[in-house]
């Protein structure tokens, strides 16, 4: 077990594993990886006390690249795995990461309910508005007129999924947006998210240069959000609804009861078994 002193000396790179990412050159996910390792180093967390959970997608490959406990599950279920882990092992720092397809398409239901449940989890959604791993289909956050997928040659024609708005409506208690092009800023958000007691949602704009080369322009488009962080859901709704989706910062922090496993007066199993006696 590493001592607090050892951990103070851990650098971001010490939280990287030896496995080389399969990501394309220039992929935004590299910087999310850096931001996470920076945040872990900043917090000086013991590696073995951290678990990073994901689903399936380019983004979801991230656990193998971080030198903490990790779990690379199936598509869309990362938050469910993370919730079970946190419920059973409240002593751990549990992070969840994955893509917009994983989190908002197939995983949408768990996102809703994880927001409501308000466990002390951090969820980092690496949004590139596309399915990278399956080679470029529209995701829920893709603009309705993006027509570069053969599956939706005229665009989806469907309103974009608004991650922050849904998180707010579902009851998330910490909502922020970061940009992988600014790994230090993102690392700061991740630090705050981890420190927040309850469910913290960090929406990360993380470009996919392979299937969305135009996302290179995000660098120019992002800007700090106008409003101060609020704990008023109506103000937050206002800020998020009128937002262009490219503003960065923490939109909302509310202090809400954190989910915890209920404990009753302890009894032994053999005491419990007495109940069956006639």
């Amino acid at each position: 077990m590493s001592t607090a002193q050892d951990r103070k000396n851990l650098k971001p790179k010490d939280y990287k594993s030896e496995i080389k990412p399969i990501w394309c050159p220039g992929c935004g996910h590299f910087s999310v990886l850096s931001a996470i390792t920076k945040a872990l180093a900043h917090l000086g967390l013991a590696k073995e006390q951290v678990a990073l959970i994901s689903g399936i997608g380019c983004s979801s490959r991230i656990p193998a690249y971080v030198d903490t406990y990790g779990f690379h599950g199936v598509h869309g279920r990362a938050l469910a795995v993370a919730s079970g882990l946190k419920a059973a092992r409240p002593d751990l720092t549990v992070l969840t990461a994955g893509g917009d397809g994983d989190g908002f398409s197939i995983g949408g239901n768990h996102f809703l309910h994880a927001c409501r449940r308000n466990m002390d989890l951090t969820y980092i959604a690496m949004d590139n508005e596309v399915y990278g791993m399956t080679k470029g289909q529209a995701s829920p956050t893709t603009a309705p007129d993006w027509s570069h997928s053969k599956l939706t040659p005229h665009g989806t024609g469907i309103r974009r999924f608004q991650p922050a708005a849904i998180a707010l409506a579902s009851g998330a208690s910490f909502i922020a947006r970061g940009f992988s092009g600014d790994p230090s800023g993102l690392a700061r958000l991740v630090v705050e998210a981890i420190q927040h007691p309850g469910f913290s949602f960090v929406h990360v704009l993380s470009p996919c240069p392979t299937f969305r080369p135009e996302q290179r322009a995000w660098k120019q488009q992002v800007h700090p959000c106008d409003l101060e962080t609020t704990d008023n859901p109506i103000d937050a709704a206002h800020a998020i609804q009128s937002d262009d989706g490219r503003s960065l910062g923490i939109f909302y922090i509310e202090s809400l009861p954190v989910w915890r496993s209920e404990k009753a007066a302890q009894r032994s199993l053999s005491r419990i078994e007495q109940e069956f006696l006639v």
Partner: protein
Amino acid sequence: MNHSYFTPHENAVSITITGSGGSGAVTAGLVLLESVARAGLYGLMGRSVGPQIRGGESAAMVRFSSQPVDCPGDRFDLLVALDWRNVLRFVDEIPLDERSLIIADPAAGDAPEALTQSGAQLLTLPIKEIASGVKGGRINMVALGAVGAVCALPPDAMTESAAHTLAPKGDAVVAAATECILKGYDSVAEGRSFAAAPRPERARARWNISGNEASGLGALRGGVRFVAAYPITPATEILEWLAPRLEQLDGTLLQAEDELASVNMIIGASFGGVPALTTTSGPGLSLMMEGLGLAVASEIPAVVVNVMRGGPSTGIPTKSEQADLNIAIYGFHGDAPHLVLAPLSITDCIATTQWGVGLAERLQTVAIVLTDQSLGQARAVIDPPEMPLFTLSRQLADQPTDPYLRYRVTAEAVSPVTAPGTADGIYTGDGLEHNERGAPSSIAADHLAQLEKRQRKLEGFDYGKRWAEIEGEGDICLLTWGSSAGVVFEAANRLRAQGQTVRVLAVRLLAPLRTQILREAIGTAQRVLVVEQNHQAQFFHYLNAQQALPPSAESYARPGPLPIRPGEIVDLVQQGGDV
């Protein structure tokens, strides 16, 4: 393991109490079952309800004996009708004959012909009138007293049971019930009690437990301390029993948003080192298969208790069937070796669930435990079960070797595993194929090594004798699994009483099948008959798939919702080779 768990029931009595919504038939049944226990006897109670959520008709079916009861009988000795409304819905489920007795109140109208044409005798009692003579009196308790008299059960046993069961409703209700029961006893003329009813014995400690409670208890005994699940009939009672008790054992129960969540939540908890379980029934199991495949591939222990109901699809949610064997054994994409177990009785739900948890933990894999509505939602009076001796658990590596190879191919094919918090045991669990270290790999050699390891750890394990319950020797071999075991054991005993030699082989560990030992156990039996409650003969075909059966083996598969009765099997065997 040749204990006398399954025994003949020449001296058993079967009673059903029926009534429409609010008549209290089920409450009466529960009191009756408990009084059987207090009288030093054994019993089994099932129930049948109409499609309504509440207020519909219901029937309680109790069978008792001086020996353990693990299946319904062929017929009913006694039908007590609290009223006749909708009783026809149960006609199929309540076989009567000329030796049967019907107790009813003429004030409730005439018995329907569908029942009287059985030739059953009618005993009319002024139940309603008696009840109205008691302040707060209810007809179900009067009827119960009459049952006690006919069955020669001690009145004390019955009034004490009523007092215990009705205590939450307050003293006045208990007092009224007691008076009604005693008046019910008095209403039956001397000499109307069954001559052959099992005689009450000196009271000994007994348990009164449902199959679903028993599965819950097995989970706790196995070490489960995390449960996530989504409600579904007929599995929900496992959760209802577990939720408050897990809290008392520093554990957690979480109601998930759906089955996709619940199965992945238990994987998360189990990855965290905490033995974890979920419960469901057919439709939910279908939704869990992807998650279970992940647990198999990433070698994270995970247990599902699947309480089977009528299928396919939504099917018949409140009735029993053994038709989820196929999905439990074969329902994974890819080659995904895992464990499938099935308890053979309500009592056995305890030990088999516990065993399932222990094996899953020890072998780092998935265990699917198949019970069904006929076990889960029935209650039995049983001997207090011993705590079994086996203690199987995950062998956590506190000090992993350096480098730590999470998926190492070891001699016994079980890889070293750590839980988060272990400093030198960091790894990433993965459902992608991987090398020994856990890094994703699509190399043929890695794939083959991991496939073989996952198979070999199951095939090579020593499961001992618990894989099946084997009784008797003989020319006739009756093979069965799960809840059908009770009825097969009883049929075998009856056949033996008629001079036949019969071996019964009731399989508990369905996968991996102990094929070689099974073949030896069948031996040279002249006639092999495979009994199960489904339409496609799933177990029969599975045994053939494993080449476990002689070519002449016969199948007796019949779907729900009606239970298979011992007489069906006896008749089949007696008919000779033409089933």
